[in-house]
């Protein structure tokens, strides 16, 4: 993992921390969605965020890559701010081009896949490496084919997304994120829009990534996946982290009554 120590020491966080959130607050108008969320995800580990809908888990995920601006707290990816530049004790808002450079290092996979419908699978994957990173097309294509093989879709590179099943589309979306060599990949309920029989193939690919040591933060309802793959389970409710720790321990023996109640409903 590419760990730069530049920002870590300033905030007194361990250098292997990939995503660090402290008292993150976010509100939409009068509605407080995040009321002080604190987590720490080490490089090479998998964190699963679970919780009832409306608990703020998707919003928190979108704050990490600055799709939403936070209203308070500290949120660092690889020891650095995504949307700001720290100088002295002031945070200066970055221009869009600089934010984009930082975002390119953070992959994101969406519930609704959000593949580009006017591009083939291969074009979807090479778009960002070529246009954002300036990779040569031939090199980007070779890598795209390799990644497609990894997600089990080697034969599909010239197909338009609409001709693929939901599970295949989501695997292409994962391949698209992987093509940018991200430091961390954020998954926003990646299997919630899928037919039940297609969930497995996507989870398989994600398990494979976890084994390869890719840092992942996964918002999910798949408790089984969390128990098997996650290094850390985070239970959110009402805009705060209610309980977090070892997934097997929490699932087997939840300490907080809200966690217990939630797990009883979904298990």
């Amino acid at each position, binding site marked *: 993992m590419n760990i730069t120590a530049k920002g870590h020491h300033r905030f007194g966080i361990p250098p292997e921390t990939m995503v660090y959130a402290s008292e993150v607050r976010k509100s939409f108008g009068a509605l407080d969605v995040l009321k002080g969320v604190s987590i720490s995800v080490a490089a090479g580990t998998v964190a699963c965020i679970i919780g009832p809908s409306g608990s703020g888990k998707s919003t928190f995920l979108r704050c990490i*890559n600055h*799709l939403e601006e936070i209203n308070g707290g500290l949120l660092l990816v690889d020891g650095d701010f995504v949307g700001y530049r720290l100088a002295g004790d002031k945070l200066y808002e970055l221009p*869009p*081009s600089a934010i*984009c*450079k*930082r*975002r*390119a*290092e*953070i*992959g*994101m996979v*969406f519930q*609704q896949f*959000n*593949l*580009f*419908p*006017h591009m083939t699978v291969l074009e979807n994957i090479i*778009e*960002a490496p070529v*246009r*954002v*990173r300036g990779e040569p097309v031939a090199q980007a294509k070779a890598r795209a084919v390799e990644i497609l093989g990894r997600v089990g879709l080697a034969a599909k590179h010239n197909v*338009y*997304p*609409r001709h693929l099943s939901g599970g295949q589309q989501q695997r292409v*979306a994962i391949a*698209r*994120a992987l093509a*940018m060599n991200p430091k961390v990949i954020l998954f926003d309920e990646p299997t919630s829009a899928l037919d039940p029989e297609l969930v497995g193939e996507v989870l398989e690919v994600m398990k494979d990534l976890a084994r390869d040591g890719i840092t992942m933060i996964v918002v999910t309802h798949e408790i089984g996946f969390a128990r098997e793959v996650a290094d850390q389970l985070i239970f959110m409710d009402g805009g705060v982290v209610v309980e977090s720790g070892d997934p097997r321990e929490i699932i087997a023996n939840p300490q907080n009554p809200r966690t217990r109640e939630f797990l009883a409903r979904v298990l």
Partner: protein
Amino acid sequence: MNANASGARLEPVAAKTLTVVPLRHPWRWVAVGIVLLGLAGLTASVVTNPQFQWPVVASYLFHERILNGLTMTIILTVVVMILATIIGTIAALMMISDSKLLSLPAALFVWLFRGSPALVQLMLWYNLSLVFRSITLWIPGVGTVFSIDTNSLMTPMTAAIIALSLHEAGYMAEIVRGGLKSVSNGQTEAAASLGMKPSLLLRRIVLPQAMRMIIPPTGNETINLLKTTSLVSIIAVSDLLYSAQSIYARTFETIPLLIVVTIWYLAVVSVMSVGQYYLERNFSRDETHVAIGPLTRVFGNLFSLRTKETRA
């Protein structure tokens, strides 16, 4: 319900021995007959009525002045459409901006130029010199950069281009805005999370998808504009209609010359429709399209009145 109550047992019937008898539509054929009869009568009267002066129509169809007028009409349409698309796109981007200071002026622009008649705008621009004697660019500290007499600037052609471009831009702005808004938010977010900056995102992700919504109404607008340009004859721009008018003002062959004009407008509109078909197809590559040409699409079903039955 009680058809079997008599005790007669139903014999099993093999599926392949069943045939479907299509429903007949005798009244549809009667209607077709009446329409055909009417069409025949109308054609006969048009062809045989000497007042149409078909030989005169033929002699003027490729007349030099008519062809020059046609060229002028096409040039005007192309220039106005290009300017209107550029101005309209800028106005659309302003309208979807988060800043009210940008979106309100754009909305005002659309309201003003889309809401007033093209003919009135043409006459207003043509008579601009009644309001502004001269047009001057004056920069504080630098002084007068240039000054020009409005009358010599506002020729019929400039007035026509400015008036029609602004009028058309009002429509284009709404079309482009609708197209941009039709692209889902998820597309923007996916592209942004890949690190694409706003300009790249607009060019590579949003606009190509918006195009699919923008092209069909734009094609209609272009066809509409081609016909609207005939209004410029009122401020003496020598377009197709004005050229015909200037001929029949001398020869009094009014009807044949107006027929010549109609034929040319119809011809250009038909060519444009074919072009629009291929343009639309180009922007929906990912959709499985049945390979039928534009002519087949229009005329293909002409004689197949019973497609529904044969499909059943």
